[in-house]
């Protein structure tokens, strides 16, 4: 077993590196719970992003009362971000353990494409095709885990490589074109049926977020993952199976990305070889932005949900105003930086006042 910790471990030469990026949200941090700030202030940061979201909603409801402030619009905003939300949950797991997974987008495409190809072109039943799709995603996760944990390669490069490779496989099995006409049962299970006017995929994504939040916050497993991310060294000295936890995080991320792929295949009624890539940066943005809310200083699923809908509410509002696509970019980029900056500011104020 090769250990990957800050310190030195057997089987590793001195000067041997794990070379890992530790994408912590909070290095020396504990969030406002940790500071002695009065509760109100502390809540300031927890709910700042929710507030910003409310503000965005309010502004557009005033500007476009007939179109934005409608149940239909709300339903469509909620319904349309399910896949992104699930992918964001995927990147969040390795981030929690201090690693990057840049392969999630390709993994999503792979899972969607395998499902579609097997179901549409090879006549597999949708159930087995979905299993195969998710299985193919897990293969990517396994490769990531082996590369990072066993060989000690930095996750940034392992997952960049495995993602590129997986994308090649997608292009290969798809013949570089879209595969459509997937089993309607999958369509119906994702976007075809609705509850309260919102497609089922939204509830699936929300459920995933809640489950993940509970796991991270209230189970020993979640605590272990957090410890591993904060300090692999300490975690190892505390007797955690650091390797297994980190491997598990990559497998978990791939599993989630695989499920996202299945949902995506349902939402599209098929699969295409390239569009999955467009989820990558937004997913990281949502995870990082989400780490400023609800449990500030930690990557957390509920914060991620808020981040996804904050950003998409703004973009949809701008679309309704007929803003050009560059305005959406300006909003997206600006909102990211301002929101995170603001939450730091609130924390500073809180700390200064405490």
């Amino acid at each position, binding site marked *: 077993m090769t*250990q990957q910790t*800050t*310190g*030195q*471990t*057997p089987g590793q*030469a*001195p*000067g041997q*590196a794990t070379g890992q990026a530790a994408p912590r949200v*909070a*290095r*020396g*941090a*504990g969030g406002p*719970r*940790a*500071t*002695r700030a009065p509760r109100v202030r502390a809540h300031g940061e927890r709910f700042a992003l929710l507030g910003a979201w409310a503000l965005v909603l309010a502004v557009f409801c005033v500007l476009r009362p007939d179109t934005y402030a409608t149940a239909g619009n709300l339903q469509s905003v909620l319904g349309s971000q399910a896949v992104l939300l699930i992918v964001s949950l995927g990147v969040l797991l390795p981030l929690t353990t201090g690693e990057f997974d840049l392969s999630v987008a390709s993994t999503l495409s792979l899972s969607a494409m395998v499902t579609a190809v097997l179901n549409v072109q090879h006549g597999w039943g949708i159930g087995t095709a979905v299993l195969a799709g998710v299985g193919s995603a897990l293969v990517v996760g396994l490769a990531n885990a082996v590369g990072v944990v066993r060989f000690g390669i930095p996750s940034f490069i392992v997952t960049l490589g495995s993602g590129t490779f997986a994308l090649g496989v997608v292009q290969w099995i798809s013949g570089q074109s879209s595969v459509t006409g997937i089993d309607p049962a999958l369509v119906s299970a994702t976007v075809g049926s609705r509850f309260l006017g919102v497609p089922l995929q939204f509830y699936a994504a929300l459920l995933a977020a809640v489950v993940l939040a*509970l796991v991270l*916050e*209230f*189970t*020993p497993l979640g*605590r*272990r993952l957090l*410890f591993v991310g*904060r*300090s692999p*060294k*300490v975690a*190892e*000295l*505390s*007797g*955690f*199976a*650091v*390797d297994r936890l980190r491997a598990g995080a990559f497998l978990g991320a791939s599993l989630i990305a695989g499920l996202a792929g299945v949902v995506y295949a349902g939402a599209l009624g098929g699969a295409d070889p390239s569009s999955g890539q467009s989820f990558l940066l937004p997913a990281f943005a949502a995870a990082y932005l989400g780490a400023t809310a609800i449990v500030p*200083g930690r990557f957390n699923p509920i914060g991620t949900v808020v981040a996804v809908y904050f950003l998409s509410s703004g973009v949809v509002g701008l679309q309704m105003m007929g803003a050009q696509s560059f305005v959406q970019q300006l909003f997206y980029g600006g909102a990211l930086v301002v929101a995170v900056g603001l939450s730091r500011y609130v924390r*500073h104020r809180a*700390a*200064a006042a*405490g």
Partner: protein
Amino acid sequence: MTTPVLRVGALSKTFGAHRALDGVDLEIGAGQVHGLLGENGSGKSTLIKVLTGVHAPDPGGRLEVHGRPVPLPLAPGEFRRLGISVVHQDLGLLPELSVAENMRVAQAIAARRAVVSWRAERRLAGRTLQRYKVDVDPAAPVASLGDTERALVAILRAVEELGDSRALLILDEPTVFLPREGTDLLFGLVRELVADGRTGVLLVSHDLHEVLAHTSCVSVLRDGRLEATVDSAATTPERLAELIVGPAGAVAPRSRAAAAGSGDAAGPVGPATRSPRVRVRDLHAPRLHGVSFDVGRGEVLGLTGLAGSGAEEVLPLLYGARRARGGVLEVDGGEQPVPSARPASSLRRGVVYVPADRRQDGGVLEESVERNVTMPVLTELGSRWRLRPRALRRRAEELAERFDVRPRDPGAVFGTLSGGNQQKAVLAKWLQVGPRLVLLAEPTQGVDVGARAHIFGLLRAVAEDGAATVLASSDYEQLATVCDRVLVLARGRVVAELSGPELDPATISDRVLSSTAPLPRQQARTPQTQESS
């Protein structure tokens, strides 16, 4: 006699070509506090890491716990189930998490329960803290605690983690962070613990007196081999020192004169006869309320006090590693307000600072010794635009020689050096620049007796060159040995000044303990560094 709680046999561990442990046999009895001594790099930490499954030992080693053989290597976390728990020297706390989260992590995690209630965990942690009368808020982040409080939290955590199968508590130099009161609390706790007759304690320390005072027997490692196991009651510090460094090695210094090295018979020159080189006026910070003192050319001034007294705060403030609220530092006549001090500006004024936590603050673990020790002299040995690799290498070699850094290879990775050698390298890094004012925090923390004498000699030499030195430490022995004068702080103020014949460990200890009780915890815990510029 009862079965020992732990027995290791023929334990070896090889790193590359280096044998860190070489056929070690060791037995720790129930109810026994067992000391483990040895030079820096003799294999103490390695032994502990084998017992905790961090390192896999070479084949052939044996381990028994409570008389039952346990196959090696241990799986990660297995030591827990065996009833072993450890306080590592760096404590292993996550500063950004709360005290409760840190304390309860093992239980919360080991539990077969699917769900952890952190509220309940907080309550349990609070109860433990209360039981041992440690006044710390379980919800506070560890980052907001002082060093002593952190050490106590780590130790209490380890005690709690022993669980029902309690076998062995390992303390890897637990007292280096602790002032006397913390040490007393710790050993009180240790005695209570072994009184149950089921638990043993393995105590790693470089403090011979402490070890003899609190253990029933002592094992000494030399170059990875077990040199001897002796009965504490039947031995002396001198005998131990001999076992540690070998018959030819230096003997633990007992006096300033000895520390100054051979032939230096001249005692310290009294402060009165020196022209003050450094003046500190009215230093203010959250925990300091107007501290002033002078340090003469060639003088070594000690600062000490209980946790929270402010003694450990002074140096980082003067250096600009933390922000002061007020105060003036004058070096050779040049005045500067302390709040505007920054490490870079301090260095330009000839002020250097050797931090206590060398692993965190002293050097970059993954870079070579050469690169670490030459950090402050990059432009001096080259130019603004060019490094002189050969000059840097030569300087590193000289320093390794002069400061006795082992191994003597400047290309060695800093992080692979044993703790004591890291400390020597860090001292070398700073003392080479010909400083006017040397700020030293716990300079011999974790350093073996031989190296300690060597370091004292080096400090002396720097003083002889005319530098003013301020040494903050809670090691009274050390203060008595190297300082010309010692200031005792309490509640953020200087409450006593000791010099001449008063400079012996017992007197210093008396003055520290009789200084008014430490600040209420509440205040002591407030984050020290909030005020930003």
